[in-house]
Protein backbone atom coordinates (compact mmCIF):
# COMPACT_ATOMS: atom_id res chain seq x y z
CA UNK A 1 0.00 0.00 0.00
CA UNK A 2 1.27 3.44 -0.84
CA UNK A 3 1.41 6.02 1.90
CA UNK A 4 -1.74 8.07 1.50
CA UNK A 5 -1.83 10.42 4.48
CA UNK A 6 -5.35 11.73 3.95
CA UNK A 7 -6.73 8.22 3.62
CA UNK A 8 -4.89 7.18 6.78
CA UNK A 9 -6.24 10.16 8.71
CA UNK A 10 -9.76 9.27 7.62
CA UNK A 11 -9.31 5.94 9.41
CA UNK A 12 -9.04 7.75 12.77
CA UNK A 13 -12.42 9.18 13.79
CA UNK A 14 -10.98 11.16 16.71
CA UNK A 15 -8.74 13.23 14.42
CA UNK A 16 -11.77 15.18 13.19
CA UNK A 17 -12.58 16.47 16.67
CA UNK A 18 -12.32 20.11 17.62
CA UNK A 19 -10.71 21.18 20.89
CA UNK A 20 -11.45 24.64 22.30
CA UNK A 21 -12.76 25.56 18.86
CA UNK A 22 -9.58 24.50 17.04
CA UNK A 23 -9.02 21.28 15.06
CA UNK A 24 -7.36 18.73 17.32
CA UNK A 25 -3.61 18.44 16.76
CA UNK A 26 -2.71 15.28 18.62
CA UNK A 27 0.99 15.22 19.47
CA UNK A 28 0.94 13.03 22.56
CA UNK A 29 1.47 9.77 20.75
CA UNK A 30 4.24 8.65 23.08
CA UNK A 31 1.63 8.56 25.84
CA UNK A 32 -0.90 6.66 23.77
CA UNK A 33 -1.77 6.44 20.10
CA UNK A 34 -5.20 7.00 18.60
CA UNK A 35 -7.21 4.08 17.24
CA UNK A 36 -8.23 3.47 13.65
CA UNK A 37 -11.77 2.42 12.75
CA UNK A 38 -10.48 -1.06 11.84
CA UNK A 39 -9.43 -1.66 15.48
CA UNK A 40 -12.62 -0.11 16.86
CA UNK A 41 -14.66 -2.34 14.52
CA UNK A 42 -12.74 -5.40 15.69
CA UNK A 43 -13.65 -4.64 19.31
CA UNK A 44 -17.32 -4.08 18.46
CA UNK A 45 -17.36 -7.27 16.37
CA UNK A 46 -15.93 -9.34 19.21
CA UNK A 47 -18.49 -8.20 21.76
CA UNK A 48 -21.34 -8.27 19.22
CA UNK A 49 -20.67 -11.66 17.71
CA UNK A 50 -18.37 -14.06 19.54
CA UNK A 51 -17.73 -12.96 23.13
CA UNK A 52 -17.00 -16.07 25.25
CA UNK A 53 -14.38 -17.29 27.66
CA UNK A 54 -11.48 -19.03 26.03
CA UNK A 55 -9.53 -22.29 26.39
CA UNK A 56 -12.38 -23.84 28.39
CA UNK A 57 -15.68 -24.24 26.65
CA UNK A 58 -16.48 -26.88 24.10
CA UNK A 59 -19.20 -24.71 22.67
CA UNK A 60 -18.89 -22.94 19.35
CA UNK A 61 -18.58 -19.39 20.69
CA UNK A 62 -15.78 -20.35 23.05
CA UNK A 63 -13.99 -22.09 20.22
CA UNK A 64 -14.34 -19.05 17.97
CA UNK A 65 -13.03 -16.72 20.67
CA UNK A 66 -10.13 -19.07 21.46
CA UNK A 67 -9.21 -19.36 17.78
CA UNK A 68 -9.26 -15.59 17.33
CA UNK A 69 -7.18 -15.02 20.48
CA UNK A 70 -4.58 -17.61 19.48
CA UNK A 71 -4.55 -16.30 15.92
CA UNK A 72 -3.67 -12.89 17.38
CA UNK A 73 -0.81 -14.47 19.31
CA UNK A 74 0.52 -16.00 16.10
CA UNK A 75 0.16 -12.71 14.30
CA UNK A 76 2.26 -11.06 17.01
CA UNK A 77 4.81 -13.89 16.82
CA UNK A 78 5.14 -13.41 13.08
CA UNK A 79 5.34 -9.64 13.38
CA UNK A 80 8.22 -9.75 15.86
CA UNK A 81 9.76 -12.90 14.42
CA UNK A 82 9.66 -14.91 17.66
CA UNK A 83 10.63 -18.54 17.20
CA UNK A 84 7.47 -19.92 18.79
CA UNK A 85 3.98 -18.50 19.41
CA UNK A 86 4.08 -19.73 23.01
CA UNK A 87 7.03 -17.41 23.67
CA UNK A 88 4.54 -14.55 23.40
CA UNK A 89 2.82 -14.04 26.78
CA UNK A 90 -0.19 -11.76 26.83
CA UNK A 91 0.03 -9.20 29.65
CA UNK A 92 -1.89 -6.16 30.80
CA UNK A 93 0.85 -3.99 29.32
CA UNK A 94 4.54 -3.15 29.53
CA UNK A 95 4.60 -2.47 33.27
CA UNK A 96 2.91 -5.79 33.98
CA UNK A 97 5.47 -7.60 31.83
CA UNK A 98 8.39 -5.96 33.62
CA UNK A 99 6.96 -6.82 37.02
CA UNK A 100 6.38 -10.40 35.93
CA UNK A 101 10.05 -10.81 35.02
CA UNK A 102 11.24 -8.96 38.15
CA UNK A 103 9.09 -11.17 40.32
CA UNK A 104 10.48 -14.30 38.69
CA UNK A 105 14.06 -13.14 39.15
CA UNK A 106 13.45 -12.41 42.83
CA UNK A 107 13.68 -16.14 43.32
CA UNK A 108 16.72 -16.58 41.12
CA UNK A 109 18.98 -13.68 42.15
CA UNK A 110 21.35 -13.98 45.08
CA UNK A 111 23.00 -11.40 47.30
CA UNK A 112 25.85 -9.68 45.50
CA UNK A 113 24.47 -10.37 42.02
CA UNK A 114 24.36 -7.30 39.84
CA UNK A 115 21.72 -5.85 37.59
CA UNK A 116 22.17 -2.97 35.21
CA UNK A 117 19.64 -0.35 34.10
CA UNK A 118 20.14 2.69 31.92
CA UNK A 119 20.04 6.31 33.05
CA UNK A 120 17.12 7.03 30.76
CA UNK A 121 14.57 4.58 32.06
CA UNK A 122 10.90 5.21 32.70
CA UNK A 123 9.96 4.86 36.38
CA UNK A 124 8.25 1.58 35.54
CA UNK A 125 11.66 0.21 34.58
CA UNK A 126 13.44 1.53 37.67
CA UNK A 127 11.09 0.92 40.58
CA UNK A 128 10.57 -2.85 40.06
CA UNK A 129 14.34 -3.38 39.97
CA UNK A 130 14.90 -1.31 43.10
CA UNK A 131 12.28 -3.44 44.82
CA UNK A 132 13.97 -6.55 43.47
CA UNK A 133 17.36 -5.41 44.80
CA UNK A 134 15.90 -4.65 48.23
CA UNK A 135 14.40 -8.09 48.34
CA UNK A 136 17.38 -10.10 47.07
CA UNK A 137 20.41 -8.03 48.09
CA UNK A 138 21.40 -7.65 44.45
CA UNK A 139 23.12 -4.43 43.41
CA UNK A 140 21.68 -1.95 40.90
CA UNK A 141 24.10 -0.27 38.50
CA UNK A 142 23.32 2.49 36.04
CA UNK A 143 24.59 3.06 32.49
CA UNK A 144 25.20 6.83 32.29
CA UNK A 145 24.23 9.03 29.36
CA UNK A 146 25.86 12.06 27.79
CA UNK A 147 24.50 15.59 27.19
CA UNK A 148 22.93 14.49 23.91
CA UNK A 149 20.87 11.93 25.76
CA UNK A 150 22.82 8.98 24.36
CA UNK A 151 24.00 6.05 26.48
CA UNK A 152 27.75 5.83 26.98
CA UNK A 153 28.51 2.30 25.83
CA UNK A 154 32.13 2.35 27.00
CA UNK A 155 30.81 2.94 30.56
CA UNK A 156 28.33 0.10 30.10
CA UNK A 157 31.19 -2.23 29.19
CA UNK A 158 32.94 -1.34 32.45
CA UNK A 159 29.83 -2.27 34.46
CA UNK A 160 29.56 -5.73 32.94
CA UNK A 161 31.18 -8.60 34.78
CA UNK A 162 30.62 -12.19 35.81
CA UNK A 163 28.25 -11.07 38.62
CA UNK A 164 25.94 -9.30 36.14
CA UNK A 165 22.79 -11.34 35.85
CA UNK A 166 20.39 -8.98 34.14
CA UNK A 167 20.44 -5.87 31.98
CA UNK A 168 17.31 -3.74 31.53
CA UNK A 169 17.16 -1.02 28.98
CA UNK A 170 14.48 0.69 26.98
CA UNK A 171 14.62 0.39 23.21
CA UNK A 172 13.55 4.02 22.88
CA UNK A 173 13.53 6.65 25.65
CA UNK A 174 10.04 8.03 26.24
CA UNK A 175 11.31 11.40 27.42
CA UNK A 176 14.01 11.97 24.77
CA UNK A 177 13.18 9.72 21.82
CA UNK A 178 16.71 8.30 21.72
CA UNK A 179 16.90 4.88 20.05
CA UNK A 180 19.30 2.77 22.11
CA UNK A 181 21.74 0.37 20.40
CA UNK A 182 20.05 -2.69 21.87
CA UNK A 183 21.68 -5.23 19.53
CA UNK A 184 25.07 -4.13 20.83
CA UNK A 185 23.86 -4.01 24.45
CA UNK A 186 22.45 -7.54 24.17
CA UNK A 187 25.55 -8.95 22.52
CA UNK A 188 27.83 -7.52 25.22
CA UNK A 189 25.57 -8.75 28.05
CA UNK A 190 25.51 -12.24 26.62
CA UNK A 191 29.32 -12.34 26.64
CA UNK A 192 29.21 -12.30 30.46
CA UNK A 193 26.20 -14.59 30.61
CA UNK A 194 23.64 -11.93 31.59
CA UNK A 195 20.07 -11.89 30.30
CA UNK A 196 18.58 -8.74 28.75
CA UNK A 197 15.08 -7.34 29.05
CA UNK A 198 14.18 -4.63 26.57
CA UNK A 199 11.31 -2.23 27.29
CA UNK A 200 9.75 -1.64 23.90
CA UNK A 201 6.83 0.55 24.98
CA UNK A 202 8.15 3.47 22.91
CA UNK A 203 9.69 1.64 19.99
CA UNK A 204 7.13 -0.71 18.49
CA UNK A 205 4.94 1.97 16.96
CA UNK A 206 7.93 3.31 15.03
CA UNK A 207 10.18 0.36 14.29
CA UNK A 208 9.75 -3.38 13.92
CA UNK A 209 12.15 -5.29 16.15
CA UNK A 210 13.18 -8.81 15.13
CA UNK A 211 13.40 -10.83 18.35
CA UNK A 212 15.44 -13.71 16.95
CA UNK A 213 17.87 -11.51 15.10
CA UNK A 214 18.36 -9.33 18.20
CA UNK A 215 18.75 -12.50 20.27
CA UNK A 216 16.87 -10.64 23.01
CA UNK A 217 15.88 -12.64 26.10
CA UNK A 218 12.83 -10.66 27.19
CA UNK A 219 10.96 -7.94 25.32
CA UNK A 220 7.90 -6.10 26.59
CA UNK A 221 5.50 -3.73 24.89
CA UNK A 222 1.95 -2.35 25.06
CA UNK A 223 -0.78 -2.48 22.43
CA UNK A 224 -2.15 0.97 23.17
CA UNK A 225 0.92 2.77 21.81
CA UNK A 226 0.54 0.78 18.58
CA UNK A 227 -3.03 1.78 17.69
CA UNK A 228 -4.43 -1.06 19.79
CA UNK A 229 -6.54 -0.89 22.95
CA UNK A 230 -5.31 -0.13 26.47
CA UNK A 231 -4.90 -2.88 29.05
CA UNK A 232 -3.08 -5.39 26.87
CA UNK A 233 0.50 -5.98 25.89
CA UNK A 234 3.02 -8.73 25.47
CA UNK A 235 6.02 -10.18 27.18
CA UNK A 236 8.26 -12.15 24.86
CA UNK A 237 10.56 -14.60 26.56
CA UNK A 238 12.89 -17.16 25.10
CA UNK A 239 11.56 -20.64 25.71
CA UNK A 240 14.42 -21.82 27.95
CA UNK A 241 14.14 -18.71 30.16
CA UNK A 242 10.38 -19.07 30.32
CA UNK A 243 10.76 -22.60 31.56
CA UNK A 244 13.21 -21.48 34.26
CA UNK A 245 11.17 -18.55 35.55
CA UNK A 246 8.63 -19.37 38.30
CA UNK A 247 4.98 -18.35 37.70
CA UNK A 248 3.89 -14.85 38.67
CA UNK A 249 0.30 -15.28 39.74
CA UNK A 250 -1.65 -18.37 40.71
CA UNK A 251 -5.09 -19.04 39.35
CA UNK A 252 -7.09 -20.75 36.67
CA UNK A 253 -5.65 -21.21 33.19
CA UNK A 254 -2.03 -21.51 34.45
CA UNK A 255 -2.18 -25.06 35.80
CA UNK A 256 -1.78 -28.53 34.36
CA UNK A 257 -3.11 -30.45 37.34
CA UNK A 258 -4.28 -29.42 40.81
CA UNK A 259 -4.67 -31.50 43.93
CA UNK A 260 -4.46 -30.18 47.48
CA UNK A 261 -1.02 -31.77 47.77
CA UNK A 262 0.53 -30.32 44.67
CA UNK A 263 -0.16 -28.26 41.59
CA UNK A 264 1.65 -28.85 38.35
CA UNK A 265 1.99 -25.71 36.28
CA UNK A 266 1.02 -25.50 32.67
CA UNK A 267 3.69 -24.87 30.06
CA UNK A 268 4.31 -21.62 28.20
CA UNK A 269 2.48 -19.34 27.69
CA UNK A 270 -0.32 -20.41 30.04
CA UNK A 271 1.98 -20.66 33.06
CA UNK A 272 2.13 -16.86 33.03
CA UNK A 273 -1.46 -16.21 32.01
CA UNK A 274 -3.47 -16.92 35.15
CA UNK A 275 -7.16 -16.04 35.06
CA UNK A 276 -9.36 -14.88 32.21
CA UNK A 277 -7.22 -12.67 30.03
CA UNK A 278 -8.14 -9.52 28.12
CA UNK A 279 -9.52 -11.59 25.25
CA UNK A 280 -10.95 -8.74 23.23
CA UNK A 281 -7.78 -6.70 23.84
CA UNK A 282 -5.56 -9.48 22.53
CA UNK A 283 -7.65 -9.91 19.40
CA UNK A 284 -7.77 -6.15 18.81
CA UNK A 285 -3.98 -5.98 19.30
CA UNK A 286 -3.75 -8.38 16.36
CA UNK A 287 -5.99 -6.10 14.32
CA UNK A 288 -3.77 -3.12 15.19
CA UNK A 289 -0.68 -4.98 14.02
CA UNK A 290 -2.43 -5.83 10.76
CA UNK A 291 -3.31 -2.17 10.37
CA UNK A 292 0.28 -1.01 10.90
CA UNK A 293 1.72 -3.65 8.60
CA UNK A 294 -0.76 -2.72 5.95
CA UNK A 295 0.72 0.76 5.90
CA UNK A 296 4.20 -0.70 6.29
CA UNK A 297 6.89 0.17 8.79
CA UNK A 298 9.22 1.47 6.12
CA UNK A 299 6.64 4.05 5.08
CA UNK A 300 5.84 4.86 8.71
CA UNK A 301 9.49 5.44 9.54
CA UNK A 302 10.07 7.55 6.47
CA UNK A 303 7.11 9.85 7.19
CA UNK A 304 7.89 10.12 10.90
CA UNK A 305 11.51 11.00 10.19
CA UNK A 306 10.30 13.76 7.91
CA UNK A 307 8.05 15.09 10.71
CA UNK A 308 10.92 14.89 13.20
CA UNK A 309 13.34 16.72 10.94
CA UNK A 310 10.84 19.45 10.09
CA UNK A 311 9.69 19.92 13.70
CA UNK A 312 13.27 20.06 14.97
CA UNK A 313 14.26 22.69 12.41
CA UNK A 314 11.16 24.83 12.92
CA UNK A 315 11.21 24.70 16.72
CA UNK A 316 14.90 25.57 16.86
CA UNK A 317 14.12 28.79 14.99
CA UNK A 318 12.38 29.97 18.18
CA UNK A 319 14.75 32.05 20.26
CA UNK A 320 15.73 30.44 23.58
CA UNK A 321 14.29 27.03 22.71
CA UNK A 322 16.38 24.04 23.70
CA UNK A 323 15.77 20.45 22.65
CA UNK A 324 16.65 17.59 25.01
CA UNK A 325 17.68 14.41 23.26
CA UNK A 326 19.81 15.37 20.29
CA UNK A 327 21.42 12.05 19.45
CA UNK A 328 21.72 10.84 15.87
CA UNK A 329 19.20 7.98 16.25
CA UNK A 330 15.79 9.17 17.38
CA UNK A 331 12.13 8.39 16.96
CA UNK A 332 9.74 11.24 16.26
CA UNK A 333 9.83 12.79 19.74
CA UNK A 334 10.83 16.38 20.46
CA UNK A 335 11.30 17.24 24.12
CA UNK A 336 12.00 20.92 24.70
CA UNK A 337 11.94 23.96 26.93
CA UNK A 338 12.10 27.68 26.34
CA UNK A 339 14.54 29.55 28.51
CA UNK A 340 12.85 31.18 31.49
CA UNK A 341 9.43 29.60 30.89
CA UNK A 342 7.96 26.70 32.83
CA UNK A 343 6.97 23.76 30.57
CA UNK A 344 3.61 23.59 32.30
CA UNK A 345 2.78 27.14 31.18
CA UNK A 346 3.59 26.32 27.56
CA UNK A 347 1.50 23.14 27.72
CA UNK A 348 -1.48 25.05 29.10
CA UNK A 349 -1.41 27.71 26.39
CA UNK A 350 -0.91 25.32 23.46
CA UNK A 351 -3.79 23.17 24.77
CA UNK A 352 -6.02 26.22 24.56
CA UNK A 353 -5.05 26.29 20.89
CA UNK A 354 -6.15 22.69 20.34
CA UNK A 355 -2.72 21.10 20.56
CA UNK A 356 -2.18 18.06 22.78
CA UNK A 357 1.38 17.76 24.07
CA UNK A 358 2.70 16.31 27.27
CA UNK A 359 4.40 18.39 29.94
CA UNK A 360 6.18 17.31 33.09
CA UNK A 361 8.89 14.85 33.96
CA UNK A 362 7.42 12.06 31.78
CA UNK A 363 7.90 9.53 34.57
CA UNK A 364 11.64 9.82 34.02
CA UNK A 365 12.80 12.04 36.88
CA UNK A 366 16.44 10.88 36.69
CA UNK A 367 16.65 12.39 33.19
CA UNK A 368 15.19 15.69 34.44
CA UNK A 369 17.68 15.68 37.33
CA UNK A 370 20.48 15.07 34.83
CA UNK A 371 19.54 18.19 32.88
CA UNK A 372 18.55 20.07 36.09
CA UNK A 373 15.10 20.97 34.78
CA UNK A 374 11.62 20.49 36.30
CA UNK A 375 10.34 18.87 33.14
CA UNK A 376 9.92 19.44 29.43
CA UNK A 377 7.25 19.97 26.83
CA UNK A 378 7.14 16.83 24.72
CA UNK A 379 5.65 16.68 21.25
CA UNK A 380 5.54 13.12 19.95
CA UNK A 381 4.47 12.45 16.39
CA UNK A 382 2.78 9.47 14.79
CA UNK A 383 2.49 8.45 11.15
CA UNK A 384 -0.94 10.13 10.94
CA UNK A 385 0.42 13.57 11.82
CA UNK A 386 1.04 16.15 9.12
CA UNK A 387 3.60 18.84 8.39
CA UNK A 388 0.74 21.36 8.78
CA UNK A 389 0.27 20.10 12.32
CA UNK A 390 3.96 20.74 12.98
CA UNK A 391 3.36 24.31 11.78
CA UNK A 392 0.37 24.59 14.12
CA UNK A 393 2.55 23.45 17.02
CA UNK A 394 5.32 25.90 16.19
CA UNK A 395 2.87 28.79 15.87
CA UNK A 396 1.22 27.86 19.16
CA UNK A 397 4.56 27.69 20.94
CA UNK A 398 5.47 31.10 19.52
CA UNK A 399 2.17 32.50 20.76
CA UNK A 400 2.73 30.93 24.19
CA UNK A 401 6.19 32.41 24.34
CA UNK A 402 4.82 35.84 23.53
CA UNK A 403 2.20 35.59 26.27
CA UNK A 404 4.53 34.13 28.85
CA UNK A 405 7.65 36.21 28.54
Amino acid sequence: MSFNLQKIRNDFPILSRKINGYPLVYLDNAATSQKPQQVIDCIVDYYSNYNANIHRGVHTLSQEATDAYEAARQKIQTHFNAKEAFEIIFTAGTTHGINLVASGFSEILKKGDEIIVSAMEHHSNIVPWQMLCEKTGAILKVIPMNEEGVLIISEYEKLLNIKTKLVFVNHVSNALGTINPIAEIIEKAHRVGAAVLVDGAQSCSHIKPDFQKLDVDFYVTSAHKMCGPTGVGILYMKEELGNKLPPYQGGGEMIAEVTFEKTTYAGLPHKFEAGTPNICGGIAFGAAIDYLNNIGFEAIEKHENELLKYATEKLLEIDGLKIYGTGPNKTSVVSFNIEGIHPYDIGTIVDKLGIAVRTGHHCAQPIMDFYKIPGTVRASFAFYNTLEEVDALVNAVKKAKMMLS
Partner: protein
Amino acid sequence: MTIEAIQEELIDEFSMFEDWMQRYEYMIELGKSLPLIDENLKNDDKLIKGCQSKVWLNSEMKDGNIIFTADSDAIITKGIIAILVRVFSNQKPQAILDANTNFIDEIGLKEHLSPTRANGLVSMIKQMKMYALAYQTQHKN
Protein backbone atom coordinates in the same frame (compact mmCIF):
# COMPACT_ATOMS: atom_id res chain seq x y z
CA MET B 1 -14.07 43.69 51.89
CA THR B 2 -15.97 40.42 52.17
CA ILE B 3 -15.02 37.35 50.19
CA GLU B 4 -18.23 37.70 48.15
CA ALA B 5 -17.47 41.33 47.32
CA ILE B 6 -13.94 40.46 46.15
CA GLN B 7 -15.32 37.63 44.03
CA GLU B 8 -17.86 40.01 42.46
CA GLU B 9 -15.06 42.44 41.74
CA LEU B 10 -13.04 39.71 39.99
CA ILE B 11 -16.05 38.60 37.95
CA ASP B 12 -16.48 42.24 36.88
CA GLU B 13 -12.84 42.61 35.91
CA PHE B 14 -12.77 39.37 33.91
CA SER B 15 -16.04 40.17 32.14
CA MET B 16 -14.25 42.90 30.19
CA PHE B 17 -12.33 40.35 28.17
CA GLU B 18 -13.59 38.85 24.99
CA ASP B 19 -11.47 35.74 24.66
CA TRP B 20 -9.45 33.29 26.68
CA MET B 21 -6.17 34.82 25.63
CA GLN B 22 -6.99 38.17 27.20
CA ARG B 23 -8.23 36.39 30.34
CA TYR B 24 -4.99 34.45 30.60
CA GLU B 25 -2.94 37.56 30.02
CA TYR B 26 -4.81 39.29 32.81
CA MET B 27 -4.35 36.30 35.09
CA ILE B 28 -0.61 36.38 34.39
CA GLU B 29 -0.70 40.11 35.19
CA LEU B 30 -2.44 39.41 38.50
CA GLY B 31 0.33 36.93 39.31
CA LYS B 32 2.76 39.82 39.40
CA SER B 33 0.86 41.42 42.31
CA LEU B 34 0.88 38.23 44.42
CA PRO B 35 2.15 38.86 47.97
CA LEU B 36 5.22 36.63 47.84
CA ILE B 37 6.08 34.03 50.42
CA ASP B 38 9.34 34.66 52.28
CA GLU B 39 12.19 32.93 50.39
CA ASN B 40 13.25 31.18 53.61
CA LEU B 41 9.85 29.52 53.86
CA LYS B 42 10.06 27.94 50.43
CA ASN B 43 10.54 24.42 51.73
CA ASP B 44 8.75 21.11 51.27
CA ASP B 45 6.37 21.81 54.17
CA LYS B 46 4.90 24.72 52.28
CA LEU B 47 4.63 22.94 48.93
CA ILE B 48 1.17 22.03 47.72
CA LYS B 49 1.01 18.47 46.45
CA GLY B 50 -0.74 17.67 43.22
CA CYS B 51 0.67 20.44 41.08
CA GLN B 52 2.88 19.86 38.05
CA SER B 53 4.52 23.17 38.82
CA LYS B 54 5.69 24.10 42.29
CA VAL B 55 3.34 26.11 44.52
CA TRP B 56 4.38 27.30 47.97
CA LEU B 57 1.70 28.63 50.29
CA ASN B 58 2.17 30.17 53.73
CA SER B 59 -0.37 31.48 56.21
CA GLU B 60 -0.20 33.53 59.39
CA MET B 61 -2.73 35.01 61.77
CA LYS B 62 -2.94 38.78 62.18
CA ASP B 63 -5.67 40.45 64.22
CA GLY B 64 -7.98 37.48 63.80
CA ASN B 65 -7.49 37.31 60.03
CA ILE B 66 -5.48 34.82 57.99
CA ILE B 67 -2.81 36.36 55.77
CA PHE B 68 -1.71 34.19 52.86
CA THR B 69 1.52 34.55 50.92
CA ALA B 70 2.55 32.26 48.06
CA ASP B 71 4.70 31.73 44.98
CA SER B 72 5.00 29.40 42.01
CA ASP B 73 7.67 28.57 39.44
CA ALA B 74 5.06 28.65 36.63
CA ILE B 75 3.43 31.94 35.81
CA ILE B 76 -0.06 30.71 34.96
CA THR B 77 -0.13 28.85 38.24
CA LYS B 78 1.14 32.00 39.94
CA GLY B 79 -1.79 33.87 38.44
CA ILE B 80 -4.23 31.28 39.77
CA ILE B 81 -2.81 31.35 43.29
CA ALA B 82 -2.76 35.16 43.16
CA ILE B 83 -6.50 35.17 42.46
CA LEU B 84 -7.10 32.82 45.38
CA VAL B 85 -4.90 34.85 47.72
CA ARG B 86 -6.75 38.01 46.73
CA VAL B 87 -10.05 36.32 47.57
CA PHE B 88 -9.10 34.53 50.76
CA SER B 89 -6.31 36.53 52.36
CA ASN B 90 -7.06 38.91 55.21
CA GLN B 91 -10.29 37.07 56.08
CA LYS B 92 -11.62 35.32 59.18
CA PRO B 93 -11.15 31.52 59.27
CA GLN B 94 -14.93 30.92 59.39
CA ALA B 95 -15.51 33.12 56.34
CA ILE B 96 -12.88 31.14 54.41
CA LEU B 97 -14.46 27.87 55.44
CA ASP B 98 -17.94 29.05 54.44
CA ALA B 99 -16.91 30.52 51.08
CA ASN B 100 -17.87 28.83 47.83
CA THR B 101 -15.70 29.02 44.74
CA ASN B 102 -18.30 29.33 42.00
CA PHE B 103 -16.66 32.56 40.84
CA ILE B 104 -13.88 30.52 39.19
CA ASP B 105 -16.41 29.21 36.72
CA GLU B 106 -17.71 32.72 36.14
CA ILE B 107 -14.32 34.24 35.40
CA GLY B 108 -13.88 31.64 32.66
CA LEU B 109 -11.36 29.38 34.34
CA LYS B 110 -13.72 26.47 34.75
CA GLU B 111 -11.31 24.04 33.08
CA HIS B 112 -8.94 24.48 36.01
CA LEU B 113 -11.55 23.24 38.47
CA SER B 114 -11.31 19.58 37.49
CA PRO B 115 -9.68 17.68 40.34
CA THR B 116 -7.45 15.81 37.89
CA ARG B 117 -6.09 19.00 36.42
CA ALA B 118 -2.36 19.06 36.96
CA ASN B 119 -2.17 22.70 38.11
CA GLY B 120 -3.70 21.75 41.41
CA LEU B 121 -6.18 24.63 41.76
CA VAL B 122 -8.42 22.30 43.74
CA SER B 123 -5.49 21.36 45.98
CA MET B 124 -4.74 25.06 46.54
CA ILE B 125 -8.28 25.79 47.70
CA LYS B 126 -8.23 22.70 49.88
CA GLN B 127 -4.95 23.77 51.47
CA MET B 128 -6.29 27.27 52.20
CA LYS B 129 -9.39 25.82 53.82
CA MET B 130 -7.22 23.41 55.82
CA TYR B 131 -5.24 26.35 57.21
CA ALA B 132 -8.52 28.10 58.07
CA LEU B 133 -9.79 25.01 59.84
CA ALA B 134 -6.55 24.63 61.79
CA TYR B 135 -6.59 28.25 62.98
CA GLN B 136 -10.23 28.03 63.90
CA THR B 137 -9.71 24.88 65.95
CA GLN B 138 -6.73 26.48 67.70
CA HIS B 139 -8.80 29.56 68.47
CA LYS B 140 -11.64 27.51 70.00
CA ASN B 141 -9.23 25.67 72.26
